[in-house]
């Protein structure tokens, strides 16, 4: 079960990576105007 010594710290690191992604998404306003992205397909350009 030595692999746990690698996998568990790795899972902790993974959580921090995901949190980093979430930070980016929240502070770029990705969750604020959810409808606009769906409507973008209607645009000409």
């Amino acid at each position, binding site marked *: 079960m030595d692999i746990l010594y690698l996998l568990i710290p790795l*899972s902790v690191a993974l959580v921090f990576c995901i949190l980093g992604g979430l930070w980016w998404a929240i502070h770029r306003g990705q969750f604020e105007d959810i409808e606009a992205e769906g409507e973008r397909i209607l645009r000409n350009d």
Partner: protein
Amino acid sequence: MTQVNVWPAAPDHVLDAAALGSAGAAQVADSLKLLDEPDEWAAFSLPDKDASGCWRSSVVFEGMHCAACAITLEDALRSVPGVYSVQISGASHRGQIVWSPEQTRPSEWMRSVERHGYKALPANDAHAHQRRRDEARRMVWRLSVAAMCMMQVMMYATPAYLSEPGDISDESMHLLRWASWVLSLPVMFFSCTPFLGQAWRDLRERQISMDLPVALGMVVTFVVSTLGTFEPEGPFGAEVYFDSLTMFVFFLLTGRWLELRLRDRTAGALEAVLNRLPDSVRKRQPDGSWVRLSIRRLAVGDVIEVLPGEAFAGDGTVVSGQTQVDEALLTGESLPLKREAGDRVIAGSHNLSGTVQVHIEQVGAATRYAQIVALMESASLSKPAMALLVDRWAKPFLVAVLLASLASAIYWWPSDPAHAVMVAVAVLIVTCPCALSLATPAAMLATAGALARSGVLVRRLSALQNLAAIDTVIFDKTGTLTRDAFEVVHIHTRKGLAPEQALVWASGLARHSLHPVSRALWSEARRRAERSFSLPELERWAAREISEQAGQGVQGQLDRPGSEALNLRLGSARFCGAPHFSGHHLQVSLADDVGWLATFELAEDVRPEAPSVVARLKALGLTLKMLSGDGAQAVAQVARQVGIDEARGGCSPQDKLEQLLAWQAQGHQVAMVGDGLNDGPVLAGADVSFALGQSVPLAQSKADFVLMAGQLDVLVSTVLRSRQTLRIVKQNLVWAAVYNAACVPLAVMGCLPAWAAGLGMALSSLLVVLNAVRLASPLPTQAHELQPRHPA
């Protein structure tokens, strides 16, 4: 207010009256030009962070209906040289424009918007809007951190729950605990900071709120678990409670976040009002000429000219001219009001028909308009209601917990000091007020969410509690039980004249008047013409030389193809020499030079759902009453139609409030349903208040519930759901009390193993939340259609 005299400003922004003319286009262009001064655009712009030397302006758009409008606008703005980026939200009608002062000016890109048929207004509340948005983002971020960490900590805790003792080696166990500890750090030191910070402020100010026992529980749990991780042989043993801790924090934050969203939705719904004032005004100079200047330079004592279609910039008195004004947004008065020399006008209301000169008496923060705005701003700063709700319980709870903990420590100290410390800590952990502090808000938020999906905005959560206890409902009449409009129910005519013909003639006059009776006649004529496909024909019947006699009616000349013109009068029976017709309906007559032609009977348009709502509310055991400012006869008529037994007409707002207080003094719990500012004091005085969605912002901001769809039928299910909410809150509180009553003595006696304390804590929170989630199911309404998002 001191006299502001910064006049004269930079000469190129000042245009004298001769150059201005009265043409609308020139006026608009000049008022836009005023925005080109740096201190003017700074009111709605910030220097852009990414592109140096550029400004980021916040703008509200008028005339936007859908996503396609946003695309048109973005294209229009991007085509202006010097505009670097444009972001427009179709949902909020707001946009951010990044532009360079070296190449363009706000007036240029705003004119480009106008060329495409829209209007761009500087968002004067941009900074407040930004603040609210940042606060919302911080909250979501805190919640996300708590959620992610909680999920992973649960993963690490699962093996410990599922395995038999000895299944997992000590090293692996230690590794899992270490990982849980690492992931609890951000929860403890970042997500928890609102609770810890509030508890610290409470300590310093020597007051107690529920945050204090909550923070105490969090800190103790975290410290004990940390010691358990790194010093398993220490006095606190090897048990860790990171899973309970993170889950509890997550639940609490979810509640706070939902509450914040609730508050923001209210603020957002009222945002349109914040940008009502014009950007510029035409001011009279001492020599009698007129200049256009920015509203921020307007001072008390100035005389300004207001054209039809413009909004008044300050509170003041009309000096000359006469007009009709629309104060609907501010006072809820849906009829245009007549204003002539000597009458008062208020900032933010609209000038409808004539040019007037106004002597300004209040500007800026002193206006009634600004007070409304301030009221709305304060709503976004106040402490969440649900936090206040549990504060009542905080003090006795905290005292009891500390006493129990201390007592057990003293009891065990003589025999075994280490055991005594552990028992005291176990008491603190097991009483961590999770279930108690979640019991009420979880239920109320679940209900508020369900109500919001059915178009009922809950503005004050604790009002749900009051609503469950009411026994009397008072309705306002106009705009609440009836629609604002009238409908034509009967037409009497002179012998030989067809009712249709009379209506067409009357509508020729009526279309020129803003009086609600005229509007009702005109819309009835249009409706009938549409049915017989003769609308273009009707459009040709336009009267000339219209004059309106206040309180009597209108008269004018109607051209008839093929025969001589008709001199028509439309108005009261006396004005037209009409015979008397008995009946309770409102009557309006039509006459020509010879005499009386026709009389139209108009009835108030009772909401179709009103009678069934009244019947169902009665079936719930509520007493229904009606108070109205209108005439007693009209009130009695509507009361009969909807089935309300007790109705009183001719009430002033003061009368209404006195009536309400009298009923409350008899021990009744009263709910008020109303729509206008005239109901403001009554709405504020009632135990629970409802405002309709189309009502005035001020009424909405005083009401506990806003019926967004403007329909009454959700009222019944709201009452039912509030009663159910109260039942569930009681169940939750009983459960929390039973849990604490059972566990505390066990912990005090030292019989509760530490793992059981942690598990109990987690399960009790979970049970409370799951019980509350039952309230989130959709309301059992009859199919009630939401109104279309924009008029067809």
